[in-house]
């Protein structure tokens, strides 16, 4: 019966084959490519470890460590900001229009041009920027604070708004699914709000937290515009290294660096799954939510 209802049985296989060709194959190719060489614009199909040796020798591993550090720090900051806010939005905010406005405000940033949003921080944080102008004119500081712009602080600060919605949305959605009765039951049984949070809300919202962390960490691992425009050359991340390697036509290096990005992400995600699996049983949680 179902077969007759699907008139286009060719559509899905055809799509899947094309999709694998443009998505999966390139990702496999870059791993392979990092072991090859390019000589006079031609790919030499002889395996070599030269690219990896030069990547390690040239100290790019420091860039990888820095990228990982900034990405994890930012993910944690966003989680600390987003988890309480998502809880408030899902359970505390009683006004429906307010909720709709906040959700709309959180959706719009996905569709805004990154460069023009980030470049404007220069005129806020720069030595002649509004913050420093106000601080010096009020006499709080004697001379402009120079570390506000072109520093790791500026990069973190610029990322704060950009990666907030991706963290809030999954957590908010899963928290809206938690039945208010569970929370009520928990407090009826004598749990303090803190205990309810720790033993009822947190375990039930964990899938959303994991999704939020994934969707925030993934773009952060290859952040490019923020470090370029607010780091002022002091905060070189893997994304910038990939870009400069491609511009210098060092394709195997770019491939190796991209492989590092994917590998680091894989390790982070595997660690995330291991940690959460140890603490809470994922499957029972899903069942609890379905009920």
């Amino acid at each position, binding site marked *: 019966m179902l077969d007759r*209802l699907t008139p286009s049985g060719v559509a*899905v296989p055809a799509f899947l084959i094309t*999709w694998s060709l443009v998505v999966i194959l*390139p990702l496999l190719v870059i791993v392979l490519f990092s072991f090859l060489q390019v000589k006079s614009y031609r790919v030499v199909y002889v395996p070599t470890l030269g690219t990896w040796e030069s990547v390690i020798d040239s100290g790019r591993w420091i860039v990888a460590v820095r990228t990982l550090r900034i990405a994890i720090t930012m993910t944690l900051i966003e989680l600390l900001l987003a988890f309480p806010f998502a809880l408030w939005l899902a359970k505390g905010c009683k006004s429906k229009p307010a909720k709709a406005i906040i959700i709309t405000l959180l959706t719009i940033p996905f569709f805004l*041009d990154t460069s023009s949003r980030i470049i404007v921080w220069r005129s*806020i944080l720069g030595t002649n920027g509004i913050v420093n102008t106000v601080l010096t004119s009020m006499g709080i500081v004697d001379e402009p604070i120079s570390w506000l712009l072109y520093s790791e602080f500026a990069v973190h600060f610029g990322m704060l708004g950009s990666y907030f919605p991706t963290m809030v949305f999954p957590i908010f959605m899963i928290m809206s699914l938690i039945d208010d009765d569970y929370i009520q039951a928990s407090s009826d049984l004598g749990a303090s709000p803190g205990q309810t949070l720790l033993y009822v809300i947190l375990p039930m919202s964990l899938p959303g937290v994991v999704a939020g962390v994934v969707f925030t960490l993934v773009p952060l691992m290859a952040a490019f515009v923020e470090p370029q425009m607010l780091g002022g050359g002091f905060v070189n991340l893997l994304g910038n290294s990939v870009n400069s390697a491609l511009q210098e036509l060092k394709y195997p290096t770019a491939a190796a660096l991209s492989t590092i990005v994917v590998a680091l992400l894989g390790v982070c995600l595997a660690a995330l799954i291991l940690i959460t699996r140890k603490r809470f049983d994922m499957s029972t949680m899903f069942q609890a939510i379905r009920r």
Partner: protein
Amino acid sequence: MIGTSDLPTLALIDERQLADSSRFWRRVSRWKGWPTTAKWLGFFAIAMIYVPLVWLAVMSISQSPLSGIPYPLTTANYAALAADSRWIPPLQVSLVMSTLVAIVCMVIATMVGRSITRMRRPGGVLLLTLLPLFVPGLTMGAALFIFLRTMLGLKMGYWSIFLAQLVWALPFALLLVLVIASRFDLRLLEAAEDLGATPWRRFWDIEMPILRPGVFGAGVFGFLLSFNELLRSLFLRGVETTMPIYNWAMAASQQSQVPIIFSLATIILVVTLPVMGVFFWFLFVKLDRS
């Protein structure tokens, strides 16, 4: 008797421990200010998104946008923008490209989305389709570039930008169609078939009206995501330029060009923000009702 005496003792210890060690934490967790704190933390993060946008608009009418003081006010930046015509071709390219991506997204998402709901084990197909969401944009762009340009030796151009943007926008479009399609009752089609409707009429008259919000959403998301895509198109552009690439190049290179993108970005924001606001408002109000 021994068995029953265990439990009360345990409870007693538990209670005593609670009283001793966690009185502080009890007080912390009963603090009335937590919801307000949570609320303002979130509002702070939202402000971090919108303060730059407001400041962008303010600085676009200021004489030196990269300094901190908006005064003296001037419309010179807008005049410079009107005199400069280099931003028009990228805008046109972006508009055409995004429309194409949106249309292709709608078609593929509808075809694949409605077939996935009829599958017995959709997990694998779904995971494969959503894979680009788990790959950073820059990595995907670099991978596609190395694959297409260096391995296959193809010439980059509009088609490769289109491909990169499609890879990014399609997973979202598919998700939107799936949300609606998974609620679709297949018995409606059986009923239509029993009543003698042809396959095309069954699709167009029965299925499509129900899927329409998802398909429409897929188109809008496809358009918007493609219109602002930078990281992937940056590597796959060849010599072509889209609006986000133009903005990026202007912002990254010479400072003298910055005033123009301030006013350009402001104009685009003034046009798109109300449209998006109204669209998402209706989307969420509608989703809330259903």
